[in-house]
Structures are given as structure tokens and as C-alpha cells.
């Protein structure tokens, strides 16, 4: 049993949110490193695989990566080096490092605390946190059918492949993909009609009962206290600039 998974899902959601808010407001690099380390420290307890999590963290948009690489050249400041007439600055470098650390610290904590949850648990926990009922229901239906529709997509792709479809940069490809997505929409709609009828036959009145009984235990309070102390410490050090 991994200890993170035994902590109340509501606590994990709220603490991940709080963590993001605190980390976003930090500026000192050592503190950001500490925040990042907090995520690394919790990761083994979440049962997520190291490789997959690190891969997901680093898999930022190619464009964001480009933006970070451009930053040393676009921030004004002290000379670092120059290449082909463009000068890079130290300030720009630190700004890029700051953003990369912040983004990854938050994503890591989010993946370990919330991403380690069953998606249905996430929906129920959000429901218990009084997030709008319609939004929670929408989320529950979406997570239920993402996998189903992904399989539907793969079936359609397989059918195209069987007819020797090979994607390329041409009108035929774009039209085929457009039709593919249109077919996906049509099938999704027809499936939702069938699902709705089946649910109504079983007495669905528009509400999914939230059966999960959540209760806070000793472990939850210990985890809350430790996290709050850590976040408070980070804020204190940031505001009073005790280091750097």
C-alpha cells in the first residue's frame, strides 16, 4: 500500500492547489529547488512510476521549451555570451530556470498527489468539495468514455489502414482525418443516446449517487500539518529573504 493513496482525496486536491499558489509566488531559486524536492520526496509514496512521471514532467510543449531557450536573449541585463549577434544575459537565464523549476515543481506535485487518484475518486472528491454538481457529473462521464472513444478511434484508424491509407501532406489526408473525426462525433452521439436510454431504464433521474464515504483520519491531519508547515516555511523565507 502506498501511503499517498491512503490519504483523503479531498486533502490531496486542496494541498496540491495550495502548493501551486505558493510555488507560483516564489522567486528565490533555492526555495524553488526545495519545492521541487518536496515533490520528489512524495513521489515514491504515490505508486507512480519514476520514469513515466519524469517523462511527463519534461514533456512540455515544444513551443514552451523554445520560449525558455529564447528568454536569455530577450531579457535585458548583464552580458553572459553572444552568438551570431544576439547577446544572452544572466538575468534571462535565471528567469528561464525559474519558470522551468516552477512549472515542473507544480506539475510533479499535481501528478503525485492528484494524478495518482482513480479518476472516479477525483470526481467524487470534487463533489464532496462542493464543486458544481453539473461540472462533476460532466467530468465523471468524460473520464468514463475517454478510453472507450480512444478504442473507437483506433478501430477507425485500423479500418483506414486496411484500405492502405497513409498520411501525408495532401488534401486526401486532411479530408480523411476530417471525416474520421466527424465519424467519431457521430458514433459518440449515437452511443450517448444508447447510454442515456439504458440509464433511464434503470431509473436515472439526472443525478449520479456519490457513494464514497470520506472521513479524515490521523494520517490526513499529520500530512496536512507537515505540508502546511513546509509551505509556511517557504513563504516566510521568500518574504523575509532570509537566504540570498
Amino acid at each position, binding site marked *: 500500500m502506498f501511503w499517498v493513496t491512503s490519504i483523503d482525496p479531498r486533502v490531496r486536491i486542496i494541498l496540491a492547489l495550495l502548493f501551486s499558489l505558493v510555488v507560483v509566488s516564489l522567486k528565490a531559486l533555492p526555495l524553488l529547488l526545495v519545492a521541487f524536492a518536496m515533490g520528489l520526496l512524495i513521489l515514491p509514496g504515490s505508486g507512480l512510476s519514476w520514469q513515466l512521471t519524469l517523462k511527463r514532467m519534461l*514533456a512540455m510543449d515544444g513551443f514552451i521549451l523554445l520560449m525558455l531557450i529564447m528568454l536569455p536573449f530577450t531579457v535585458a541585463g548583464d552580458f553572459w555570451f553572444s552568438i551570431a549577434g544576439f547577446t544572452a544575459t544572466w538575468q534571462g537565464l535565471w528567469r528561464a530556470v525559474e519558470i522551468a523549476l516552477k512549472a515542473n515543481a507544480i506539475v510533479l506535485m499535481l501528478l503525485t498527489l492528484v494524478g495518482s487518484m482513480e479518476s472516479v475518486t477525483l470526481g467524487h472528491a470534487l463533489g464532496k468539495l462542493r464543486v458544481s454538481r*453539473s461540472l462533476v457529473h*460532466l467530468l465523471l462521464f468524460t473520464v468514463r468514455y475517454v478510453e472507450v472513444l480512444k478504442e473507437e478511434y483506433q478501430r477507425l484508424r485500423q479500418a483506414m489502414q486496411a484500405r492502405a491509407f497513409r498520411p501525408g*501532406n495532401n488534401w486526401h489526408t486532411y479530408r480523411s482525418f476530417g471525416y474520421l473525426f466527424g465519424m467519431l462525433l457521430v458514433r459518440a452521439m449515437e452511443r450517448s443516446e444508447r447510454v442515456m436510454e439504458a440509464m433511464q431504464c434503470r431509473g436515472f433521474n439526472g443525478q449520479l449517487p456519490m457513494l464514497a464515504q470520506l472521513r479524515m483520519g490521523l494520517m490526513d491531519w499529520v500530512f496536512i500539518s507537515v505540508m502546511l508547515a513546509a509551505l509556511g516555511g517557504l513563504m516566510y523565507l521568500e518574504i523575509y529573504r532570509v537566504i540570498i
Partner: protein
Amino acid sequence: MHIVDGALTTEVLLIGAALTGLGLMQGLRSMPLEKIPATGMLAATFFVASLIHVPLGPSSVHLIMNGVAGILLGWAAVPALFVGLLLQAIFFGYGGITVLGVNACNIALPAVLVYYLIRPFIVRASVRQQFIFGAFGGGLAVAGSTLMVAASLWFSGEEFIPAAKLVLVSHIPVIFIEALLSGATLYLVAKVKPELFMGRSW
């Protein structure tokens, strides 16, 4: 087009969160309980769309299809696209939490705009014309999102202005591809299951 945490200024984050909040309220109000399963199914379809890659030059781009989402769902496109972004952030680590409002607003508001500008033509169009209007809607939505992503960066500081310009230029081919694909999508839907957008909006 997922901006990450830590780059944007607090003002931009707050404006994004506020706009998304208002959009969600309006979207959830326009979505009665019995429409939630269908909306969820469509939200899942748009989530799957973001996993579909189409070739573009030597590389490839993933589908966004927010224009089609706007045409089919109207205001309900806001919660549908928001849920998709939330799941991507939580389970795949794309984007972030404090920027979720900005990211959702950048994708979903152009969808709503397309709903108002294009949908009136769609419901009256012949099957052939569906392609034209669909292409217009699809291109317009992605162009809107691109402008908003660039603006989010632009207003976050001078150092991001080159990156914002890069976003604008690099998304021009994506706008055309999304237009073609959206046109083809709506053409197929009009042929196979026109009641998907002939009825009242979701």
C-alpha cells in the same frame, strides 16, 4: 498551446480565471441534467481529438477542433473543453494549475465566438455549404486561440514579446489545417447525422 505555470503575471492569470469562471457558469446553466451524458461523451471525443496527430510538413500537429466544439455545443463548449484541459493537467502534466483559467479561456472563448458567428449559417446551409462554413468556423476558432495565447504572453512582460510573435507566425499553417479538417468534419456530420446540429443547441 498549453502555457505552463510560472510564466504569466498575476494579472493575466486572474483575468483568465475570471473569464473561465464566468464562461463555466454560463455553460453549466445552458446544460440541463439530461444533456450531461451527451455533453460528456462529446467532451471525451474532443479529448481524444487532442491525441490525433495529422502530418504538417516534416512534423505533425494534434487536432484542437474547438471550432467544431463551439458549433455543436454552444456555451456548453466551455465546461466540455475545461474538463478536457483539467484531465490533461492532472493525469498527463500538460499545462498547469494556476494557468488553467488562462488556457481554458484561450481555447473555449473562441469556440463560443464561433457559435455566435457561424452557427446561424450552419443550421440553414446545404450539405455542400457545410464544408465552407465549417472551415470558416474551424479556422476562426484556432486563429482566435492563437491571438489569445500570444496576448497572454505579450501582456506578461516585454521578454515574452518575441515568443508571442513566434506563436502567431508558427500557428498560421495550423489555422489552415484546422479549417480544412473542420470543414470536412461538418460535411460528414451533415451527411450522416444532420440532427447533431439541426436541433437546438446543447
